[in-house]
């Protein structure tokens, strides 16, 4: 305990967006210091079956689906929560260490970790313990929509309703916030991963071709859209033809991807509509007047704001730099916790 406090003197407080797809770390006074995929490659030694970390982050992600038998590339988080406790701990340890450059002491910062608002007590405890196991001397948990709203620059402390929609890798969180508190929040386990899956399924169904997750993600990034537009984009991809059993290249266009994404997108729209339904009328009026704010990687999907605007009839705004909103918001909350000693945003 004392050692941790001592090491804490040489550590920077961190806000961690422990996402299913990406982990972002925001350091106080430094900004975003780390933005890496939440992927760990584990090598199993041939002798005794001992396991060691082969790669973490970008390097590990490039191994996804391309590993030999003794290496396993794992995404330790699923649907916003920890699926593999030990690997998450190792990954966090690695990331926290990397966030402290040229530090010869093992860092022991206070960390604020953002958790999905729909996560259970068990899942939260797993996150807390894995952060503590990774060397943190203090762990604060904060609900992701709140962090996203703060990071997006919404006036969360005003007595006006602000709606935030955070489309992450594993979950989509929608929340209405007023007076530093969450009035309504809903978390659906739909996110960027589900988009990728939808693309894979669509391609297999319509092209009888298998593509990997990485390819699906690339397709989504390049030609994915959520709302029909006049211009049509195309992309050439390669996959294994199921009938022939050999890799074939084929061309996909944006309309096909739009079609493939309909199902997860409609899930998000439904969640938003439900939220608007459940929001008290005054707050709903505030939201309708100013609009809702989109954050998270899903907000980068082309025309997703238009889709939501058309579906809900209220203004939709994409936050600046939506990927980092959660981490930045957590950082601001941590700073406030430090300066004013009030942890209105965090709990436990």
């Amino acid at each position, binding site marked *: 305990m004392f050692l941790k406090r001592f090491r804490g003197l040489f550590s920077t407080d961190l806000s961690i967006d422990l996402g299913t797809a990406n982990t972002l770390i925001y350091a106080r006074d430094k900004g975003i210091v780390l933005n890496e995929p939440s992927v760990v490659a584990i090598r199993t030694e041939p002798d005794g079956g001992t396991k060691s970390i082969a790669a973490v982050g970008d390097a590990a992600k490039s191994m996804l689906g391309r590993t030999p038998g003794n290496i396993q590339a794992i995404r330790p988080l699923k649907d916003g929560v920890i699926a593999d406790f030990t690997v998450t701990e190792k990954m966090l340890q690695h990331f926290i260490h990397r966030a402290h450059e040229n530090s010869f002491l093992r860092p022991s910062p206070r960390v604020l970790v953002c958790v999905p608002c729909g996560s259970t007590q068990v899942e939260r405890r797993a996150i807390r313990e894995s952060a503590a196991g990774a060397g943190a001397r203090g762990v604060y948990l904060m609900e992701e929509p709140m962090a996203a709203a703060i990071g997006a620059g919404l006036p969360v402390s*005003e007595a006006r309703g602000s709606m935030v929609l955070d489309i992450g890798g594993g979950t989509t969180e929608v929340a209405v916030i007023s007076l530093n508190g969450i009035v309504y929040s809903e978390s659906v386990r739909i996110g960027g991963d589900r988009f990728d899956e939808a693309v894979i399924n669509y391609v297999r169904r319509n092209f009888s071709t298998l593509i990997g997750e990485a390819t699906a993600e690339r397709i989504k990034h390049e030609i994915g859209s959520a709302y029909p537009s006049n211009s049509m984009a195309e992309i050439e991809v390669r996959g294994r033809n199921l009938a022939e059993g050999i890799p074939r290249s084929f061309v996909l266009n944006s309309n096909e991807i739009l079609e493939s994404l309909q199902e997860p997108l409609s899930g998000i729209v439904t969640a938003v509509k439900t939220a608007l339904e459940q929001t008290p009328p005054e707050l709903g009026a505030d939201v309708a007047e100013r609009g809702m704010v989109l954050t998270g990687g899903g907000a980068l999907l082309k025309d997703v704001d238009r889709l939501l605007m058309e579906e809900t009839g209220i*203004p939709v*705004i*994409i936050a600046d730099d939506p990927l980092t909103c959660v981490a930045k918001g957590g950082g601001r909350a941590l700073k406030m916790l430090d300066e004013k*000693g009030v942890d209105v945003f965090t709990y436990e």
Partner: protein
Amino acid sequence: MTTPPQSHDLDEVATIPVLRGPGEQLRSAREAAGTSVHEIATHMHLDSRVILALEADDYDQLPAPTFVRGYLRGYARLLDLDPEPIVRAFEQRDLAPPSLVADISEKSRVHGGDFPIRLVTYIVVAALIVLVVLWWRSQDFAPVRFDTPFAGDSSLPEEESAIVPQEAPEAQSAAPPASEQAAELQEETVTPVEAEASPETRAPAAGALEPDTQAVASVASGTESASPGETEAPVAETLALAAESGIAAGENDSAEALGSTGEVAAFALPAEGEAEPAEDLPADAAASEPEVPGGETSAPEANAEAPLAETPSESPAPSAVSESADVSVEPTPSAPAAEQDVSFVSDASADRLQMSFTVECWLEVYDRDDERLFYGLAQPGEQLSLSGRGPIRVVLGNSDGVEVRYNGTPIEFDSFVTRGVARFSVGGSPPEVTRTPARDADADADAESDAQPAGEGEPAPDGG
């Protein structure tokens, strides 16, 4: 249709000639496209007045900058404009994001980094340092350490006391010249003092020399006689006591000089009596012989008790040189009995305090003028005889097993004992035993003092 931009907006636009205000760019684009504000508002699901405020760059009417940025992007996209220049023009306004307010009543916690806290911390640390330094200095200035040889003198007010603290170390030095020097010093101190009429000396501080060297306690060439002492250094700490014989008027009773080789102790027990010019001790005899001259019976004993007396013949030191007839040096009968006896020979008005110890006892004795008569650790079995002018202030660190006699009368001091420490004054006129207020004690006296008002003491037996 459009409201003119506010004046400060105009100023800002004027300073940035390249980038017109975002609202103005959008308005001109919209007018060029021939669409109305209402159409735009419908497409964007916003109020018309929001669009108007956007075009007027009137951000007071608009929500937080995040929303404004989103509106500008959406507006620009509707008009098929590149949103980025417009958003950049908006960023020029540099509007701050909404601040996070913790609560309605924002209570701030006192934080470790706050200035007042830091200040208090520094003050406390500085105070601690100062206290430590003060304590250390006070320790450092303690005049005599436990193991330094101590020499007291009878401290007659008119008599210049032999410079005891300086003398003792000097006398302790191994080199015989040093001890001679000491002797000279002593002589110097003595000579100005009264009475050529009774030119007589006292026991000089005896230097405890290295075992192989001599104990030289020689005094005083010329007029005065020195009564060298014998040092018994049982614990390597030499109790070099400058036994002074009172010079005045020859109240000096006896000064015994015993020279033993290894150690020398100034050894002078007061014997009541007047200054007798009579019994000179032939100092030369003392110088030549190890045995004390004139110490007829006691000297051999004393000598025999000095186990380290390797080379008796070598000791020229204890030369009680008395050229003048005034010197009376007599071995007192008590001398052989107590090896470590120390005596102060004082003048006629001196009171005599005798103590015998059955336990180890820290002891401080001061006379009327706060001159220190004794300061040190008495060993079990030791007997101590001190002379000074009363009232004599006594601090006994371990009063159990100490017997005190004042001018021959036993003193009861049990009522002055606090946790083993006895503080009392004895003697004076009228003679009495009183409690010594603790603050009267020397600076380095025991801290465990109970400050009691003086004068509570019971009358002491009159010591005459």
